[in-house]
């Protein structure tokens, strides 16, 4: 009893593990259980049991409930589909005036709203795209095709690439100085001469619509949440789920509501990008000190003035970090939106990956990454730039960037005009370098891939086989071997030990949702893949982070590397691994490890950095060695921070596992991918997305609760 009192948690964990393994060994695998057969796989078999709920018939293989629960939520996807169908086709028919036919037409309200939204966003995308690349759609929107054919001169000419490059360089200079200006110019020139201008501008136009709209909505909702507790409470669960929801999953309902194309991509990007903006707006506004608010009130501000003249300018930095996050999300969505027809680099990347043309994929991926890094640096520079309210500047000093840009426009137009005379083969290289006329390194990379395969085939094959046969398959089998009752005991027990009965109920509830869905087995496979990635990422991340922390320069270098890697859209990680390991589970898992190592490394460094220097001094004075200091002082104090890194690592790993479905896995992601091409996939996609989000939330809840308690215990809250 004394031991129990001395090490209460140790005994609780021991008991939990004993109970878990006892249940695992006590419950046999049913003779009729086969993984692929799993639960309701939507095939008809006379041995399936059925039930009907809310008009939906669900078929499933009934097992001993200790082994697997029946999919009592199997009706949910069908119900979601039916509801969407009802909303889009039957609900609230209203008469609307149709401009084309000049008569009233009865349309369901939601359909009309989505169509109007679609045309508005399409117009915005076309407008920006035509400013950058030229075209007639915008003019047509205000006139007609007949008018355009009569007036062939009437079209937006598009900006020559030289002007856009100069504009980016000037913006870089204004925000951060020569370094960023040079980088911006190099990126733009690279994109142009490598023949990626058109797709890059298509992607940019997509982002230039999605990012500002996400910013406006995010800021608006963030302010609303700041003002009203009720709004905050209503938004909180949505924000929580959206943080861990795979972006793939929201694509499917978007197809149903908005169809396919750039507009649907923009809308879905907004859905994904708004939550971080809301959170950072809320964080920024909450961080404003009461003295500043008081000063604002004393100056006679009304509520509106207080918000826009005092609170938002004071919280400017956090809000602009939110803009940075929005841009990054937009980039990652630029590739994912290609699944539903968004044009640009993402589409090219996807096409190249589909054809297993690694060279082309690499070119497109590099361009996306470069633009992402550029916009990341620009937005961060904007966030960190201090506004000089008191500078007494001359007219030239104040407007020099605008003057330079006007000059660049003029020179760019003259160059493009001159180019039209100089290049007489039909391609004006000073206006736009066409896709097939730029320098291409695709062949070089493809030959590189062939060389790797020729040279290291045996080594790669041995590694691949070893990993799959000796590590992955046993691990997968072990996960699938878990009876559901044992899983519940483990998850709820962990929740109870970490956060008490409340946590146990929360994690139990989230797990129950997954268990009652028809995809429990798939969820187990997803979890096994993510776990494998997380374990390796944490080992690598914690080791690299700890080693780098020993030196100031290596710390800064590693944080810089993490920054750059974090800006790469997740799909880009698949390219090098496919080069090395082809289309296998190994590729997915290595991509998961690389992607998820970033937060593990970053948070380790940040955590070790957060240890107060005074404690280092105190430790040194007590005569501890470097190792003792690391193990006895720095690690225990940095652990809460590192655990938040673990949390991020899990979320990153889950995202990458889901994206890995693109190169063939058998987890939830594969079903989400299937749902994209399924006419009735919206319900399935959304339910699967929730399953993935809930897996993430279970870990998120446990880790956050533990971190909160640990911080309290250490007095660093």
């Amino acid at each position, binding site marked *: 009893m004394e031991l129990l009192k001395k090490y209460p948690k140790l005994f609780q964990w021991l008991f939990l593990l004993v109970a878990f393994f006892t249940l695992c060994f006590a419950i046999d695998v049913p003779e009729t259980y086969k993984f692929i057969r799993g639960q309701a796989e939507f095939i008809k078999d006379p041995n399936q049991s059925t039930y009907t709920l809310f008009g939906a018939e669900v078929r499933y293989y009934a097992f001993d409930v*200790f082994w697997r629960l029946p999919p009592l939520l199997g009706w949910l996807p069908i119900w979601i589909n039916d509801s969407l169908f009802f909303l889009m086709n039957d609900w609230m028919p209203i008469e609307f005036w149709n401009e084309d036919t000049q008569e009233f037409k009865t349309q369901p309200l939601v359909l009309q709203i989505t169509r109007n939204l679609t045309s508005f966003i399409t117009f915005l995308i076309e407008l920006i795209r035509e400013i950058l690349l030229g075209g007639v759609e915008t003019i047509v929107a205000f006139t007609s095709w007949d008018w355009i054919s009569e007036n062939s001169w009437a079209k937006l000419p598009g900006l020559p690439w030289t002007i856009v490059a100069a504009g980016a360089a000037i913006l870089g200079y204004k925000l951060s100085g020569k370094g960023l200006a040079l980088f911006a110019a190099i990126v733009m020139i690279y994109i142009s001469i490598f023949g990626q201008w058109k797709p890059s501008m298509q992607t940019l136009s997509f982002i230039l619509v999605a990012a500002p709209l996400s910013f406006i909505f995010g800021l608006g909702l963030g302010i609303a949440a700041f003002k009203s507790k009720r709004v905050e409470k209503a938004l909180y669960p949505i924000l929580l789920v959206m943080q861990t929801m795979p972006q793939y999953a929201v694509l499917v309902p978007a197809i149903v509501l908005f169809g396919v194309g750039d507009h649907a991509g923009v809308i879905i990007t907004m859905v994904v990008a708004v939550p971080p903006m809301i959170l950072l707006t809320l964080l920024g506004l909450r961080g404003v000190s009461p003295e500043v608010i008081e000063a604002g009130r004393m100056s006679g501000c009304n509520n509106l003035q207080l918000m826009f003249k005092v609170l938002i300018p004071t919280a400017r930095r956090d809000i602009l970090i939110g803009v940075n996050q929005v841009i990054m999300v937009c980039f990652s969505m630029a590739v994912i939106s290609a699944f539903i027809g968004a044009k640009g680099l993402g589409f090219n990347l996807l096409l190249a990956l589909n054809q297993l043309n690694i060279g082309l994929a690499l070119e497109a991926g590099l361009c996306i990454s470069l633009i992402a890094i550029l916009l990341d640096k620009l937005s961060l520079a904007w966030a960190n730039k201090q506004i000089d309210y008191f500078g007494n500047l001359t007219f030239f000093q104040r407007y020099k960037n605008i003057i330079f840009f006007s000059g660049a426009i003029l020179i760019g137009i003259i160059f493009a005009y001159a180019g039209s005379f100089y290049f007489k083969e039909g391609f004006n290289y000073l206006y736009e370098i066409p896709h097939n006329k730029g320098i291409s390194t695709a062949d070089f990379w493809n030959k590189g891939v062939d060389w790797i395969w020729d040279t290291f085939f045996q080594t790669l094959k041995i590694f691949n086989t070893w990993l799959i046969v000796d590590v992955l398959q046993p691990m997968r089998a072990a996960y699938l071997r878990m009876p559901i009752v044992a899983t519940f005991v483990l998850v709820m027990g962990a929740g109870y030990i970490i956060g008490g009965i409340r946590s146990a109920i929360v994690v139990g509830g989230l797990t129950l949702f997954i268990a009652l869905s028809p995809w429990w087995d798939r969820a187990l496979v997803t979890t096994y893949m993510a776990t494998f990635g997380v374990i390796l990422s944490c080992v690598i991340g914690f080791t690299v982070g700890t080693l780098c922390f020993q030196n100031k320069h290596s710390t800064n270098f590693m944080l810089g590397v993490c920054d750059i890697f974090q800006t790469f859209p997740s799909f880009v990680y698949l390219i090098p691994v496919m080069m090395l390991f082809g289309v296998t589970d190994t590729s997915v898992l290595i991509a998961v490890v690389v992607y998820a190592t970033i937060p593990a490394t970053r948070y380790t460094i940040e955590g070790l950095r957060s240890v107060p220097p005074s404690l280092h001094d105190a430790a040194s004075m007590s005569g501890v060695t470097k190792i003792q200091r690391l193990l006895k002082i720095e690690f225990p104090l940095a652990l809460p921070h590192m655990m938040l890194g673990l949390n991020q690592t899990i979320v990153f790993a889950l995202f990458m596992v889901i994206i890995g479905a693109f190169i063939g896995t058998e987890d939830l992601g594969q079903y989400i991918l299937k749902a994209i091409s399924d006419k009735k996939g919206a319900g399935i996609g959304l339910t699967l997305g929730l399953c993935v989000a809930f897996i993430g939330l279970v870990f998120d809840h446990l880790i956050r609760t533990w971190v909160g308690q640990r911080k309290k215990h250490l007095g660093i809250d």
Partner: protein
Amino acid sequence: MLQNTYLVKLMKISEPVRQFGGLIILTIIVIFSFAILNNIFGEGEELIAKMKKEEERIAETRKQNELISSLPSGILVFYDGTDHYKLSPDQYEKVCKATKIIPQRAIMGANFLNFRAHHIYTINGNKIDETFVKWNKENNKCFAGFTVSGNNVGVDEKITVSGEVLNFLSTGIDTRVYFIKNF
């Protein structure tokens, strides 16, 4: 009073022990809940029996498919006197058991000798209710048939036509009844 005493005793238990007790109770509750659910939804033995039967059927079909793929495409007979492929007695039985399809050609041929069946078949839009192919153990022969039903001048009729299968047609993917001798 008694309750109060227990409550006081419970309150006196130290926190670690209480937490440990809580964990044990939670584990028991989870297992107990599953036991209740198992009583409601579990199908256990019954399902295993059903699934085993199904697996046997699948194994049998697989064997039959192997046999079919080993046969040449075209007409298969079990008697002498033709140029068609002649089935051995064993093959004849297996092909009979593997055959499920009676094509319209065979039905029309059998109907030709059964005026009433032909009439009902025609006036009801060439509709067939059900077909069957059975192996007759006593005669060591394969029998096939079909049922036609419908309204014949105000009277509901149902006629079953059956006869010995004289030959089969192998398509390479499956085997079909080629001719039904119903005379």
